[in-house]
C-alpha cells in the first residue's frame, strides 16, 4: 500500500424522489464528474427519513450519511422537508453529543434543476470524510 493511497469513504445518500433524485439524475445526464462514493437510496420524501435509517446506516458501516431533499417551500408533500429539518437537526445534535464526528452526517437541499450542486455536495462531503478515515465507532462487529 503506497502512501499516496487515500481512503475512499462509503457514503449512504437518502435522496428524495421529487428533487434530489432528479438532481442526481441531472448530474448524470449532464456528465458532471463527481466521486462515486455515494450509494443513493431513493426515498419518497426526506420527511420519511427516520432517524433509524441514519443510525442503521452507520451501524452497517457507512462512513457518512447524506440526506438530501427539496428546498424549503418546494416539498412535493408541502411540509415534509420542514419536518425532516427539525427531526434531523436533533439527530445531528445527538450524534455530535455522543462524540461522533460532525462531518459524518450531512443534509442538503438540492432541487431537480441543480445537478451541479448535487455533484458539489457529494464532492465536498467525500473531501470532508477522507481525513476522518473509516468509521468504526458504531460499526457492528461482524467477525
Amino acid at each position, binding site marked *: 500500500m503506497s502512501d499516496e493511497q487515500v481512503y475512499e469513504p462509503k457514503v449512504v445518500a437518502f435522496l428524495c424522489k421529487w428533487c434530489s433524485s432528479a438532481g442526481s439524475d441531472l448530474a448524470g445526464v449532464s456528465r458532471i464528474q463527481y466521486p462515486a462514493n455515494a450509494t443513493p437510496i431513493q426515498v419518497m420524501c426526506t420527511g420519511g427519513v*427516520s*432517524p*433509524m435509517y441514519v*443510525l*442503521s446506516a452507520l*451501524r452497517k458501516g457507512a462512513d457518512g450519511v447524506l440526506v438530501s431533499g427539496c428546498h*424549503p417551500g418546494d416539498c412535493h408533500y408541502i*411540509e415534509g422537508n*420542514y*419536518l425532516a*429539518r*427539525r*427531526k434531523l*437537526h*436533533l*439527530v*445531528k*445534535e*445527538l*450524534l*455530535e*453529543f*455522543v*462524540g*461522533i*464526528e460532525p462531518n459524518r452526517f*450531512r*443534509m*442538503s*437541499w438540492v432541487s431537480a434543476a441543480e445537478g451541479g450542486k448535487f455533484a458539489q*455536495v457529494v464532492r*465536498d462531503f467525500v473531501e470532508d470524510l477522507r481525513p476522518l478515515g473509516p468509521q468504526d*465507532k*458504531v*460499526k*457492528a*462487529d461482524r467477525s
Partner: protein
Amino acid sequence: MINLKDIRDTARDMLTKGEVRAVIGWQQGSRGMAAEPVVITAPEQADSLVWNPTCYHNLSLYLVNDKKAQAHSKQKPTLPIAIIAKGCDARSTVVLMQENYFRRDEVYIIGVSCEGTGVVDEHKLAVALQGAQPTAAAFEGEDYVLTLADGSEKRLSAREVMADRCLECREPFPKENNLVLGEDKTGRSLEAPFAALARFEQKSEAERWDFWKHQFERCIRCFACRSVCPMCFCDECVVDSIEMKVVPATTAQEKADRVRWIERSATTADNFGYHMTRAMHLAGRCIDCGECERVCPVNIPLRLLNNKMEREARERFGYEPGASIGASSLVASFRDDDPNAFIR
C-alpha cells in the same frame, strides 16, 4: 409541608363518594424504607397510602398500564382514575393526554407539590449513611429524617441526598391538576437547569466518545429504562421486535424479510442504536422524571441524552414538553425559522 392525612382523606373521600374507580399512589414497600406504587380501589385501603422521600416512581406509567388493561378487556369504565402526581408525574400525564393516549376527563389528578425537597437518590444516601440501612424516611422542612435499623434517627439536608433531576427541576409544582396539596414553590432551582449536561458538554469530542463508548459497552439491554418509562408505551418496540412468531412453517424468506433496524444483541454498536433511537423517540416528550437513570442496573447516565434533546427543543424550537395538552408535538410541527444553517 404536605400532610399525609390530607392525601389519605382525599383518596378515601373520592372512593367513598364513587367519584373515581381507583387511586394510584404509593404504599410502604417491602424493601427497607422504599415506597412502592399501589392502586387502591376501596376506601379502607386509603390508610396504606404514604408520602415520603422515596416516592420517586413516576405514577403516570400506571395510567398507561390501566389503559392497556382496558383495551385488553374491551371494557370501558365510566369513572375516571385518580393519580397522585408530583410535578414531573403531572407533566408526563400531560404529554400522554397531548398524544391522546387518554382524555383529560378520564383522569383525576391529585397534585402533590414537591416544595423543594424532591425525592431521594439512593446512591447518594448510601454514601451519606456509610452503609447504614434506613427503614423509614420522612420529610421535615428542608430535610429528610431517616430512621435507621438500630432505631436511631438521622437528619440530612434534602439538598445533599436529593436526586439530580430534583436539584435541576424547574417545575416541582404540578400545574395540571384537579386538586393540589402543598405549596407552589416553582422558580426554586437548587442547581441551574441542565447543569449536569452543561458540565458534560465541556468535554472534547474524543472524551465524549470515550465516555459514551464505555456506557454503551456496559448496557446489558435489560430494557428496564424502557419498562419504567411512561412514554415507552408501544406494544412492540421497534428495537426489540418480538412479535413475529417463528413456527416450523415459517420460511427463511419470511425470517429474512423481517425488518430489524437495530439488533437485540448487547454490543456497543447495537446499544448505541438502541439508546440513540430511544432518545429520538423521547425528544419533545421526555419530561425529565429521571426514572430511566434511576432503574438502570449498570448506572448509565441516560438523563444526559434526554436532557440534551429537551434543551435542544427548548432553545432551538421554543418547545417545552408537558406544558400544554393542546400543543402539537415537537417533531410533528415546524416553524419557518427553524435552524437551517447546518444544511448545505
